[in-house]
C-alpha cells in the first residue's frame, strides 16, 4: 500500500543537505577560483566563430586537423596574455566550428590574430646567440647553439647583464612589436612575439637583436609575421637560443609537401620536404652556398644552417650537409614522432592545416555586457518573484513549499554552474541566463503537477497522508516522462548546435536535472513531512488544501463535504448494484495507480 521512497522523508532531506554541503565545500573551497565564468556577451569582449574549410577543395576535415588548428589558434591567443581567453570547437567533421572568445578585447586584434595564415620563411642563419638579452658591449661574441637540430641544445653561456640594454636604436630596423593601442589598452598590454628586422645587417640591428629577450614567453608564441625581404632577429620556439638570419631564400608557399617518416634504419624520425620548381632552384642555390660554410655555433657568421621561421619564431634550424638539387630535402634530427609530425605539418600547411572562414564576429563592450547581465538577473528575480507570489496565492502552505523548492533549485543551479565553470569550463552566456529564467516555469510545473495530484487524491476521499504518497507515485511518473522529453531536447540541442544555442541547451538540461533532484529529494519529502502535521489536516484555508478549494460548492461549507460524500456514495451504490466487492475494487484502483 505504502508507495516506495516516501516512508522516510527525513532521510532524503538529510541526503540532499549532505550533498549540498559537500558540493558547496568543494565549489567554494578557499583559495580556489569559485566565480561563475561569464560569457563575452555578459562581460564584454570579442567572440569570433570560424568555420574550417579544407585547404584542398572537397577534402574532409579530420579530427586531427581540427585539433591542430585549435592548438595553433590557442597558442596565438595565449600569446595575447589575456586571462580566460578561450578556444573551443563545437560540432565535428565538416560541420565543426571553432569559437574564439577573448574577454575585454576589441575585434580588430582578435580577428587579425586568428584569421591570419601564418607565414613560413626559410632563411639562411647568420649566427646563433643565447636567449638572454645582452648588453650592447658584448654582442660581438656570438653564442653557440646546436643548430643542426630542430631543438638546439641548451645554451649555458652566462651573460653579464641580463637587462635589455637598448643601445644605438637609430638604425632602420623596425621593431615590430605589435598590438595596437586600442587593443592593448583594454587589458593592459596584449602583445605578440617581438622580432627585430632590418633591411641590412648593421651594428644597430645587431644591438637590437642582442636586447631581444628570448626568455620572455611572449616572444616564443609567435604571431608576428616577418618580412621575408629583410634581415630578422628572432627567438627559437623553445626559448633556448636567438637567431640572426638573412633575408628568406624560400617562402612557405614553395613547399608542396612535407611528411614525417621513419629513417631508413628505422631509428628516429626525419621530415621530408618537397618544393616546387622555383623553391627547388632556390634550395639548390642556397644549399650549395651554405653547405660550404662553417658550422653554426662555432662563432662563424654566416654559418651553414637555415632557419624555418613561422610567424616570427624559429621552429627549426637544420644544417645543410650537402647541396640539394632536385627539390627534395630531408631534415634529420633528434625528432620523436610527434615533433617530426608537428614540423611536417607546419611545413605543409604554413600554420593551419585548414583555411578558416570568419563567419561571425560579436564584439560587446564591457558596459553593454554588464547591462545585459544586470537585465538578465533582474528579469530572473522578477520572474522568480512573480511565480512565487502566484504559487503562494494559489497553494498557500503548499505554495510555500514550492517557493522554498524554487529557492533551493536556484541555489543548486548556481552551485552547479560554479562547479561546471571549475571543471569543464562552462561559461554563462546571456542565452544561458535566458534558459535559467525559462526553467523557473518548468521547475514550478513539477510542483504544480504534484500538488494537483495530491488534490485529486484528496478529492477521491483519501487521507492527506495517503494522498501525499499516492499522489507522488503518479506525479513522479508524469514528471519523469515529461522531464525526459525536455532533457532529450537539451541534449540534442547541445550536441548539434553552435554558438549561443549550446549555452542555452546546457542550462536547460542542467535545470531539468535539478528539477528532478528537487522534486525527488526536497519537495516530496517536505510535503510528506507537512502531511504529518496536524495543521494541514484541519482543512485550514491557509493549508491550500481546504475543502472549499478542493472542488466543493463554496456557498455552504457542508455542501462541499456532501458532494464528496455523494461521489463516494454513488460509487457504493454502483458497487451494491453490480455486486463488486468494495475492497476488491479499491485494491484494483491502487494497482492501476502504481
Amino acid at each position, binding site marked *: 500500500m505504502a508507495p516506495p521512497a516516501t516512508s522516510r522523508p527525513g532521510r532524503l532531506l538529510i541526503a540532499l543537505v549532505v550533498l549540498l554541503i559537500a558540493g558547496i565545500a568543494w565549489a567554494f573551497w578557499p583559495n580556489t577560483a569559485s566565480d561563475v565564468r561569464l560569457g563575452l556577451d555578459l562581460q564584454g569582449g570579442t567572440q569570433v566563430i570560424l568555420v574550417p574549410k579544407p585547404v584542398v577543395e572537397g577534402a574532409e576535415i579530420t579530427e586531427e586537423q581540427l585539433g591542430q588548428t585549435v592548438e595553433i589558434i590557442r597558442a596565438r591567443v595565449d600569446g595575447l596574455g589575456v586571462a580566460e581567453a578561450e578556444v573551443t570547437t563545437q560540432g565535428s567533421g565538416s560541420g565543426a*566550428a571553432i569559437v574564439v572568445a577573448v574577454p575585454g578585447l576589441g*575585434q*580588430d586584434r582578435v580577428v587579425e590574430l586568428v584569421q591570419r595564415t601564418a607565414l613560413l620563411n626559410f632563411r639562411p642563419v647568420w649566427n646563433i646567440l643565447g636567449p638572454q638579452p645582452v648588453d650592447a658591449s658584448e654582442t660581438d661574441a656570438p653564442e653557440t647553439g646546436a643548430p643542426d637540430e630542430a631543438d638546439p641544445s641548451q645554451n649555458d653561456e652566462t651573460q653579464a647583464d641580463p637587462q635589455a640594454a637598448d643601445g644605438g636604436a637609430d638604425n632602420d630596423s623596425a621593431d615590430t612589436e605589435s598590438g595596437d593601442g586600442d587593443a592593448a589598452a583594454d587589458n593592459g598590454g596584449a602583445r605578440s612575439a617581438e622580432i627585430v628586422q632590418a633591411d641590412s645587417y648593421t651594428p644597430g640591428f645587431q644591438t637590437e637583436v642582442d636586447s631581444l629577450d628570448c626568455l620572455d614567453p611572449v616572444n616564443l608564441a609567435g604571431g608576428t609575421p616577418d618580412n621575408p625581404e629583410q634581415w630578422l632577429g628572432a627567438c627559437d620556439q623553445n626559448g633556448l637560443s636567438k637567431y640572426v638570419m638573412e633575408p628568406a631564400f624560400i617562402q612557405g608557399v614553395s613547399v608542396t609537401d612535407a611528411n614525417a617518416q621513419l629513417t631508413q634504419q628505422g631509428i628516429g624520425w626525419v621530415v621530408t620536404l618537397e618544393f616546387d620548381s622555383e623553391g627547388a632552384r632556390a634550395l639548390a642555390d642556397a644549399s650549395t652556398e651554405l653547405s660550404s660554410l662553417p658550422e653554426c655555433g662555432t662563432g662563424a657568421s654566416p654559418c651553414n644552417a637555415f632557419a624555418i621561421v613561422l610567424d616570427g619564431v624559429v621552429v627549426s634550424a637544420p644544417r645543410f650537409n650537402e647541396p640539394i638539387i632536385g627539390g627534395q630535402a630531408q631534415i634529420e634530427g633528434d625528432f620523436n614522432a610527434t615533433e617530426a609530425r608537428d614540423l611536417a605539418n607546419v611545413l605543409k600547411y604554413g600554420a593551419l592545416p585548414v583555411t578558416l572562414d570568419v563567419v*561571425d*564576429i*560579436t564584439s560587446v563592450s564591457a*558596459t*553593454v555586457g554588464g547591462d*545585459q547581465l544586470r537585465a538578465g538577473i533582474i*528579469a*530572473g528575480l*522578477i*520572474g522568480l518573484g*512573480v511565480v512565487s507570489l*502566484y504559487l503562494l496565492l494559489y497553494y498557500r502552505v503548499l505554495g510555500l513549499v514550492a517557493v522554498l523548492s524554487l529557492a533551493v533549485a536556484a541555489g543548486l543551479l548556481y552551485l552547479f554552474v560554479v562547479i561546471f565553470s571549475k571543471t569543464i569550463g562552462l561559461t554563462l552566456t546571456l542565452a544561458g541566463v*535566458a534558459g535559467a*529564467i*525559462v526553467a*523557473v*516555469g518548468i521547475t*514550478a*510545473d513539477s510542483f*504544480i*503537477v504534484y500538488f*494537483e495530484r495530491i488534490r*485529486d487524491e484528496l478529492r477521491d476521499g483519501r*487521507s*492527506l497522508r495517503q494522498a501525499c504518497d499516492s499522489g507522488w507515485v503518479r506525479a513522479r*511518473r*508524469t514528471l519523469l*516522462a515529461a522531464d525526459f*522529453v*525536455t532533457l532529450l*531536447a537539451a541534449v*540534442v*540541442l547541445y550536441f*548539434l*548546435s*553552435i*554558438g*549561443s*544555442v549550446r549555452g*542555452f541547451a546546457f542550462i536547460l538540461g542542467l535545470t531539468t536535472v535539478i528539477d528532478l533532484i528537487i522534486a525527488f529529494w526536497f519537495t516530496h519529502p517536505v510535503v510528506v513531512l507537512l502531511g504529518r502535521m496536524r495543521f494541514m489536516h484541519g482543512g485550514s484555508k491557509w493549508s491550500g488544501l481546504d475543502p472549499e478549494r*478542493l*472542488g*466543493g*460548492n463554496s456557498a455552504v461549507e457542508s455542501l462541499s*463535504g456532501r458532494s464528496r*460524500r*455523494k461521489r*463516494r456514495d454513488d*460509487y*457504493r*451504490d*454502483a458497487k451494491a448494484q*453490480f455486486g*463488486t466487492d468494495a475492497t476488491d*475494487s479499491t485494491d*484494483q484502483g491502487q494497482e*492501476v495507480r502504481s
Partner: protein
Amino acid sequence: MSGAKGFGQRLYRGEVSYDFVGRWRRWYILSAIILIVSIGALGFRGLNLGIEFRGGADFAIPNATCSVVDARAVAEAETGGQTIVTVASSGTMRVQTIPLTSAESIAVADSLGEACGVTGSEITVQVVGPTWGSEISAKALQGLVIFLALVTIFLVVYFEWRMAVGALVALLHDLVITIGIYALVGLEVTPATAIGVLTILAYSLYDTVVVYDKVKENTRGIYGQSVMTYDEAANLAVNQTVVRSINTSFTSLLPVLAIITVGAGLLGAGTLLDLAVALAIGMAVGTYSSLFIATPVLAQLKRRQPETKSLASRVKARRKQALKQAKDSAQAKAGNGGVEQGDDGDSPAEPDPEPVGSASPEQIREYARVQSGDRKQPKRQSRRKRR
C-alpha cells in the same frame, strides 16, 4: 452554468467539465483557420530574417545622440549599401548594414561613434558572414529531425504510436503557428528566436506528455468495462489536467513576460528579448494545442481501433439498459448518455455509472462527478469524512 461564479473558479472546483474531445470540430476549424493564415503569411510575407541569417553587420550604439537619419547617412556613406536603423526604448540605436569585413566594420563603428557621440569601443558590433545563416539553419534543422525521431521513439515506447502521432501533430501545429505569427507581425528572426522555437518544441511536448500520461492512466483497462468510452476517459483526463495546464502556463509565462518587460525596457532588442517573444508565443500556442488538439487527435485515431468501437457500442447499450432500468424503478432521472452532450456540467443527469470489470473506481467516481450536474436522485447519507 451554476450561479454567477467565474468560469475559472468553477473549472477549478471541478464543477465544470468541458468537452474538449467531443467538440473537436470547433477546435480543428479554429486551428485550421490560424494555420492557413500562418502559412499564408509565411508564403506571402516571408520571414524577417536577422543579419545572422542573411549576413551583415549590426552595430548597437548605446545612448546614441545622433538622429536616425544621420546614422543611416553615415553608415551608408561608409558601406555603400542599404542600412536599417532602429531605436529601442532604452535609447540604444541599432544600425544594420550589408555584410562587411572585420576591418570595414571597425571603420564603420568608428564613424558611427563619432557621429553619435560615443567611442567606437562602446559600440557592440556583430559581423556575420553570408553563409553562416545557412549553416546555423542546417544545424538547427538537423537537430530538429534527430530530436523528433528520438522523441517519437520515446513516445511510441512509453505510450503508443497513436499518442506519438497526436503529440507530433500538436507539435507541428505549434511550430507552424509560431512561425506564422513571426511572419505576420514581421518580428525579426535571429538565432535566439531559433533557440526559442526549439524550446517551444520541448515545452509543447512536455505539456502533451503530462496530459497523455493522465489519459494513459484513465484508460488503463478501459476495454474491460463498458461504463465509459475512450473519448470520455480521454476528455476526463484533459479536464483533470486543465487546472494544472492553466497554472503551469501562468508560471511559465510569468518569467518570460518578465524577460520581455525587462528586456524591452532596459536593453532594447537582443538575445533575451528575441528568445522571450518566441517563447511567449509558443507557450500560449503550446498550452492551447495540448488541450484542444493533442487529445482530440488521439481520440480520433483511437476511434478507428476495433476495440474502441466495440467499447463505444457496449457503453451505448448499457446506458440504454440503465435508462430503461431507471425508468422502471421510477426514479426521477433523465438519461441521455451521449458522448457529445456531457458539457458544462449542467446536462441532464446521467444514469448511475456502473463499475464493471477492471475499471478503476476512481475513474468511475471522477466520471460520475464530471458528468453529473445536480443530481435529483435521493441520497443515502454518509458520515464519511474526507480522511
